[in-house]
């Protein structure tokens, strides 16, 4: 079967499975799972979208963005505005049923992503032209500014919050966006573009010397990352039908950052895991509410001591690429690699530190 045909079949199967899950498991009428559990699973889905998209810029490209919630807010509010003013009419026009809302969301999601992506472009271009940690400072500022705007624009509810957004609590839609995000990021990092992105993370100057237009690739990765965060925001906006500027403050950006660090920078599976763990964990610890933050912090500390690269950190972003190459090399060489990945913790730590510190010239540890 040709590749595209196989991909099509896989995609259709996946859609069928997601829809079946939505229909049989998540339908409140069937009482398969409690609304509470369903809610947690769906929130985890939204967080997966956010974490995987942030990993693209922070984990794979090595640029430190700490304003992810800002882009999420842009996507959430812009799509909410659209849904209230246009989407509702559109859905009503199509009979207000499932079909109508599917059509409305089908428009609202790309719209939110597009607006967030545009915001990413405006923030990214000036700050990514420079080498170094300017992006962290600028995104931090951006996140704050967005919240100030949201608090003061009356048309979108201001500090009271934005209510009246059509609620579409759809597992299918949330899972679809999460899967799409994973597919987009996965395909991107396994392409020639992905090699360029990883080389920027490893050593920006050397990457430039290989002929990689580093500014262009950094901006591209950042825009895609922001757009996907925007899509995550769209889901959140239509989840409870209510948005509050408070939920997009710095702490939210930080939360997403913790997810990818916990899961392992540069690992997609890690980000998914991090998102799930950090959605479920606070809920699981709800019984010990007063000790919750203590347990939560201790767990994080233990993890950082035992696995400084995150749960799945240091695993290979280029597995597929490498597997193809390996077919050509001897088994002997494979054994060396295997030993190597084990012994490599210290190196990973060094690069991680470098990323947090100075990515600018990458002269830090390779030089000595």
């Amino acid at each position: 079967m040709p590749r595209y045909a196989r991909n099509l079949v896989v995609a259709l199967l996946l859609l069928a499975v997601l829809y079946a899950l939505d229909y049989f498991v998540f339908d409140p009428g069937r009482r398969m799972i409690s609304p509470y559990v369903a809610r947690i699973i769906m929130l985890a889905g939204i967080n997966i979208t956010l974490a995987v998209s942030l990993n693209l810029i922070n984990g794979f490209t090595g640029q430190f963005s700490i304003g992810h919630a800002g882009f999420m807010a842009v996507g959430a509010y812009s799509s909410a505005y659209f849904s209230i003013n246009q989407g509702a009419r559109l859905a009503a026009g199509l009979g207000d049923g499932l079909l109508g809302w599917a059509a409305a969301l089908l428009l609202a999601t790309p719209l939110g992503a597009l607006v967030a992506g545009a915001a990413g472009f405006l923030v990214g271009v000036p700050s990514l032209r420079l080498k170094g940690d300017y992006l962290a400072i600028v995104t931090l500022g951006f996140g704050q500014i967005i919240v100030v705007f949201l608090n003061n624009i009356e048309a979108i509810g201001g500090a009271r919050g934005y209510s009246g957004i059509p609620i579409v609590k759809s597992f299918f839609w949330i899972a679809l966006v999460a899967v799409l995000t994973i597919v987009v990021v996965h395909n991107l990092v396994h392409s020639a573009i992905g090699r360029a992105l990883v080389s920027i993370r490893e050593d920006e100057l050397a990457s430039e010397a290989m002929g990689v237009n580093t500014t262009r690739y950094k901006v591209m990765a950042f825009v895609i990352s922001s757009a996907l965060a925007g899509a995550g925001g769209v889901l959140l906006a239509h989840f409870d039908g209510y948005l509050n500027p408070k939920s997009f403050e710095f702490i939210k950006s930080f939360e997403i950052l913790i997810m990818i660090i916990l899961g392992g920078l540069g690992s997609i599976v890690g980000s998914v895991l991090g998102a799930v763990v950090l959605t479920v964990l606070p809920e699981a610890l709800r019984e010990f509410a007063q000790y919750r933050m203590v347990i939560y912090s201790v767990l994080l500390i233990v993890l950082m001591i035992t696995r400084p690269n995150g749960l799945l950190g240091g695993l290979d972003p280029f597995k597929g690429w490498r597997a193809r190459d390996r077919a050509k090399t001897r088994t002997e060489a494979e054994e060396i690699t295997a030993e190597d990945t084990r012994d490599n913790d210290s190196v990973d730590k060094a690069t991680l530190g470098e990323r947090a510190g100075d990515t600018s010239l990458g002269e830090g540890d390779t030089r000595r």
Partner: protein
Amino acid sequence: MLTLENISVSYGAIRALKGVSMHVEQGEVVTLIGANGAGKTTTLRSITGLLAPTEGRILFEGAEISGKPTHQLVARGISMSPEGRGVFANLTVRENLQMGAYLKKNKAEINRDLERGFRMFPRLKERESQKAGTLSGGEQQMLAMARALMSRPRLLLLDEPSLGLAPLVVHTIFEAIDEIRGEGTTILLVEQNAHAALKHSDRAYVLETGRIVMEGASKELAADPRIKEAYLGE
């Protein structure tokens, strides 16, 4: 092939280069030697577009390249092995070399060039699937040079290839420079190790506090009493 015309570079109020003129002709190995802070790295950085000269022009094969972004140089036929080697620590040796051929599309050609790199540095072949960060300093330098050759440059810029390496490894590196030159690649070698650099080059420039103070055939410079005293420690 490469011409620097009266290049001046300032860092704020400090003038790091004060009217440097030099040229590199096709097929030559030219070395630029000087003490720390003489302006060697600044010169190289202005050639590679990391710094914009405040005065003067840089020409490569007749076209002005001063102020052009670094990533455009590869397509023009200039490749560099950056100071401090700059290998991609978390990528394997093979992946590093493949990155060197980033702008190349022809798979067969890339594979041939990979094999050529491995022939030149058999050590790299042994370490093919090892992460570059686990290599020794000398091996990383070999990798940086092999990677720079993957784009089939007409001009290769080497920034302090012997920095911090054991004498035996330095020997290997300079042998490789001879070999690269034998294949017809022009080389501009920036070095602190004046002894080895003069031995393995055709012509040399001596840089002192931002000015070229001497230039000439490497053999003659190596015999010059002033050079002997200041740079060769004799």
